[in-house]
């Protein structure tokens, strides 16, 4: 369990500004963390996720092969003791590529969410707190962004930036701005009316200080949950776009590209597609379980139990 602790605790303490500065705040995070661990699916998800992260980080030490070393004589070898997940059309070890692909997918998921999260949170807090014309203008633009379903906005942005891994992260990230901004705006609007915010305003606190010190920590829970679930969704979208050839480019060991490589030879070499897909599924599944667990653990209605 100590391993899980390291994986999940920073995500709670890290996003709650001021955690550790005051004893009761830390204990709130601690209690949420304890609750989190009692949810079986969430704890399992966190453990699996931690393993996946470690596997991606220590990928070079876990395999004797290189992910881009071509060995034509060893093409399409079925899974064996030597090649745990077989080899692809160039004789590259699929297991090695899946390990390195984890680096790409996890990075893409995190960075895309970070882009969407930072911009969205700032926009949403500004709109919700200052209201008026700022709010009106921001929400109009966001409504326009929301008029593009799912993957379409990302496709449009990739169209204008050109397909590459970096542009993929930007494209997917921009797609999450509107969601984050809406979430934050709603919560800030509600939090503005709380007495402690009014008190801080009456004491002459500066707007950004109030937003950062008083409002943000108190509406962090839904934000953390949303961000977690966004990482999973971003990984899926990014893999889908790469699968279409609109994201990372070969010979990158990106999971979506590997899947699309295996598509042509499904009958001959099912393993080329099966394992990268399983890796995506395992990653998104564990993140989603963690996100659902956080939703319950951070719910103020069960706090203190």
């Amino acid at each position: 369990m100590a391993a899980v602790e390291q994986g999940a605790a920073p995500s709670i303490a890290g996003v709650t500004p001021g955690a550790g500065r005051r004893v009761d705040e830390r204990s709130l995070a601690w209690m949420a963390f304890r609750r989190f661990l009692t949810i079986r699916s969430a704890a399992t998800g966190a453990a699996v996720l931690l393993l996946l992260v470690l596997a991606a980080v220590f990928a070079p030490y876990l395999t004797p092969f290189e992910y881009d070393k071509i060995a034509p004589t060893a093409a399409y070898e079925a899974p064996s003791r030597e090649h745990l997940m077989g080899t692809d059309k160039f004789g590259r070890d699929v297991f090695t590529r899946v390990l390195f692909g984890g680096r790409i997918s996890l990075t893409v998921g995190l960075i895309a969410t970070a882009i969407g999260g930072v911009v969205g949170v700032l926009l949403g807090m500004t709109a919700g707190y200052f209201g008026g014309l700022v709010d009106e203008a921001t929400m109009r633009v966001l409504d326009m962004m929301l008029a593009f379903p799912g993957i379409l906005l990302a496709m449009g942005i990739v169209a204008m930036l050109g397909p590459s891994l970096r542009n993929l992260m930007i494209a997917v990230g921009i797609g999450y701005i509107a969601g984050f901004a809406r979430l934050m705006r709603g919560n800030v609007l509600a939090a503005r009316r709380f007495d402690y915010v009014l008190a801080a305003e009456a004491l002459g606190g500066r707007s950004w200080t109030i937003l950062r010190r008083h409002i943000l920590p108190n509406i962090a829970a839904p934000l953390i949950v949303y961000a977690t679930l966004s990482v999973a969704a971003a990984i899926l979208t990014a893999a889908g776009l790469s699968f279409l050839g609109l994201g990372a480019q070969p010979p990158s060991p990106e999971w979506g590209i590997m899947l699309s490589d295996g598509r042509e030879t499904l009958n001959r070499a099912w393993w080329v597609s099966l394992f990268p897909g399983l890796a995506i599924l395992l990653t998104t599944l564990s993140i989603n379980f963690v996100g659902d667990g956080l939703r319950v653990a951070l719910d103020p209605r069960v706090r203190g139990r």
Partner: protein
Amino acid sequence: MLLGVSLAVFSMLHLLPVDPVEMLIMDSTTGTAPTSGVTDEMMDNLRRELGLDRPLPVQFASFVGNALRGDLGMSFRNNRPVSEMLAEQLPYTIRLTLAGLGTSVVLGLTLGILAGLRPNSWIDSASMLLATFGVSMPSFWLGLMLIYLFALRLQALPALGVGSPQALLMPAIALGFHGSAIIARLTRSSILEIMGSEYITTARAKGVAESFVVLRHALRNALIPVVTVVGLEFGSLMSGAVITETVFARPGIRRLAVRGILEKDFPLVQGFVLFIAVIYVLSNLIVDLCYAWLDPRIRFE
């Protein structure tokens, strides 16, 4: 709203730091080396021909004006009207989208209702586990695995193409599974909330049969939030169809969209993105109309 969407699509592709004309004459395979022997004069002519020398507001006005008349411009690469190319491929995509939507609604409602009526039972846990798988599963991988299992191993269904109605079955499942997960979760929470409400207790108290309570009283009200999601799903599925079409090698707008993006065929991408965005907005409008039918209170407002 639609004007805003077209402005967004337009500016997305026109406020770029890149010159479409330069891109156009670039070698589309390498994407870097401009073809040799192109003079500035030739580029200016091309620019004029494509109408790209006019000020942006003028270009936008003519784009909107033409789009309203169903003219989405000429494709840079194929020298054919974009609307004609869209019309050619759309029927396939719409058929797939509707089939996928049908799958999500049927599967999602079934799971959601079963789970919502028996909270914390094994069927509830199983449904919600399936739903979490649904949101986590890459649709293209699911599609490939379905092909492997049912077409290549069991030879029960055709793997690719659009020849028979059976050929639509696997793509529909691959496309609709994700949406069914979302609908199932929502239906469950909606049913849970409504089964605890007072009018359900009243209906039961006056001796109405349980099946009638569920079907007539609970379901109708539980459906209201679900309808919203179904409306949103239509647009998402339509853009998601691009991936499913690739997996099953089906004709459809994927051919236009992906090729348009890779070949920097801006009018094509513009037309495609605008078209789906408009469909998305329209399906939301239809959802609003459905509200009035499901919830009579809205009519009075």
